[in-house]
């Protein structure tokens, strides 16, 4: 993390909001009459409008990609180690856009927003949104910002699914797609983890079928457990062993149900932290968006056919310690791109961080991204 005075920081960021009155028909069939998209930008759009890079966020992040807020300097963007002046995604050269997806709880229209039809929060009535829907809203934001074509769209995990979907929804509008720690669809095991998380939330007595906003309660217990489950899958067993071992907090087993092992303490902390700021209805929808993502589904499961319409050049990156979306899943995408004779490079890095390695600084990982961005013509 960079201190605010760090010259490699984009500095104070300003969250902006774009309002859209043009209705959007969602993949699930519902229609949103109007919506807001929260976003931030860093750097300057050049005269040719050829230097824009869209950063897509994953499950629990937001449009706050880099920098800090003037009134909250400790709130540093989630990909600040990558984005900034002189950083791998260099804001001296690129105009970087971070956009928050609809359904979120960080500024874009979501379940906690007011439903114009009732004047009350949407709650459970907010529709289920998909990766395709997010790309559609991002395209409209790009129109608003005067970006006809992105130099690159980049993301990790769920963000990478958006980076891939962009090349399918708008093949002409993406020159490079950088797909990190991703999968072309979830395995039943992935979906199972998501379902346990959803069940934890939905069976919390404070959930009230999703209409908890007016009741003065939030399903924190469910959300806490959901986050714990998620967190276990984001880090590798190896990283967990190295970080916590079997260290006992009290020096010896308590033979009770207080915290014994360090890892328990860590999970409780992560769960508490997450449930204090994240919205349960958003969590439900985001896990569904993950489950539903499957561009090959319309092509009889044939990913090669599904990716035939992509025109972008691709950089695909996976991490060997990632067991949530293993390198084999990335290779499926690479294979399909090769079958289509697309321009693609693939890195399979031996980084220890697990799925979350995409957020961490690693000399090889960031070195590759730095070189890749440097080679993008403007």
């Amino acid at each position: 993390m960079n201190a605010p005075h760090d010259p490699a920081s984009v500095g104070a960021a300003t969250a902006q909001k774009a309002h859209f009155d043009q209705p959007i028909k969602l993949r699930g069939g519902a229609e949103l009459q109007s919506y807001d998209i929260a976003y931030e930008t860093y750097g300057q759009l050049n005269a040719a409008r050829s230097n824009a890079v869209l950063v897509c966020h994953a499950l629990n992040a937001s449009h706050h990609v880099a920098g800090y807020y003037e009134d909250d300097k400790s709130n540093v963007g989630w990909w600040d180690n990558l984005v900034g002046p002189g950083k791998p995604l260099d804001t001296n050269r690129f105009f970087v856009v971070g956009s928050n997806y609809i359904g979120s709880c960080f500024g874009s229209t979501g379940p906690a927003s007011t439903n114009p039809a009732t004047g009350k929060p949407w709650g459970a009535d907010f529709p289920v949104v998909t990766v395709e829907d997010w790309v559609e809203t991002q395209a409209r934001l790009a129109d608003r910002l005067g970006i006809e074509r992105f130099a690159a769209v980049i993301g990790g995990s769920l963000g990478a699914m958006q980076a891939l979907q962009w090349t399918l929804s708008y093949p002409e509008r993406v020159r490079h797609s950088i797909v990190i720690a991703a999968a072309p669809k979830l395995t039943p095991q992935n979906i199972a983890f998501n379902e346990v998380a959803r069940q934890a939330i939905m069976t919390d007595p404070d959930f009230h079928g999703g209409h908890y906003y007016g009741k003065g309660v939030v399903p924190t217990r469910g959300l806490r457990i959901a986050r714990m489950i998620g967190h276990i899958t984001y880090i590798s067993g190896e990283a967990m062993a190295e970080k916590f071992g079997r260290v006992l907090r009290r020096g010896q087993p308590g033979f009770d149900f207080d915290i014994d092992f360090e890892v328990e303490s860590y999970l409780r902390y992560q769960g508490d932290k997450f449930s204090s700021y994240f919205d349960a209805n958003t969590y439900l929808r985001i896990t569904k968006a993950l489950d539903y993502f499957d561009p090959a589904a319309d092509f009889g499961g044939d990913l090669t056919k599904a990716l035939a319409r992509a025109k972008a050049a691709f950089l695909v990156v996976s991490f060997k310690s990632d067991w949530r979306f293993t390198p084999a899943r990335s290779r499926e995408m690479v294979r399909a791109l090769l079958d289509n004779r697309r321009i693609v490079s693939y890195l399979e890095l031996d980084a220890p961080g697990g799925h979350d390695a995409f957020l961490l600084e690693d000399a090889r990982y960031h070195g590759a991204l730095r070189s890749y961005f440097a080679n993008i013509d403007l």
Partner: protein
Amino acid sequence: MRPDQQAILQWVPKGARVLDLGCADGALLRSLGQEREAHGYGVEIDDASVLECVANDVNVLQVDLESGLSLFADGSFDCVILSETLQTIHRTEFLLREMLRVGREGIVSFPNFGHWNARLQIALGRMPVSDTLPYEWYETPNVHHCTITDFEDLCRRLGIRIRERLVLHAGKPVTLMPNLLGSLAVYRCTAG
């Protein structure tokens, strides 16, 4: 550029789709693009080399050759290159077959262990070290050395047809007693 790569440059048809197995920093692919309008991908396992490829704007795929070429469809390349990489491979037969599965043509180069200098060093009781075999035995990435005769025997056994052969020493072609006087061999071959 290494002498075998000069030869490879001449053998790759203009505009060919190429796959370079063990492509190091991607220099050969870059030259093939510039001089032969060829395009394609490099395969490399080493992190530092992969990063160099990305920096050199060469398409690179970080996969282990020992696990085969399952990323690539049958006949998807005009030419598959294995330039001074054969001797580092454990599953030699498997990779040669894979090569000619995904490519219509293969180009293979390797240091000739039958060169007189190597023979002499062995005769004197030492593992050979030379320009084409630049490693001490304890640090070499090479696992399967062969001579020109050995390689041609294997090709015969695997039904690989040798279309062209160039034997070099110090960058110059060797025609007389190639297995003795040549230190580097380059082959163009096809399946049957």
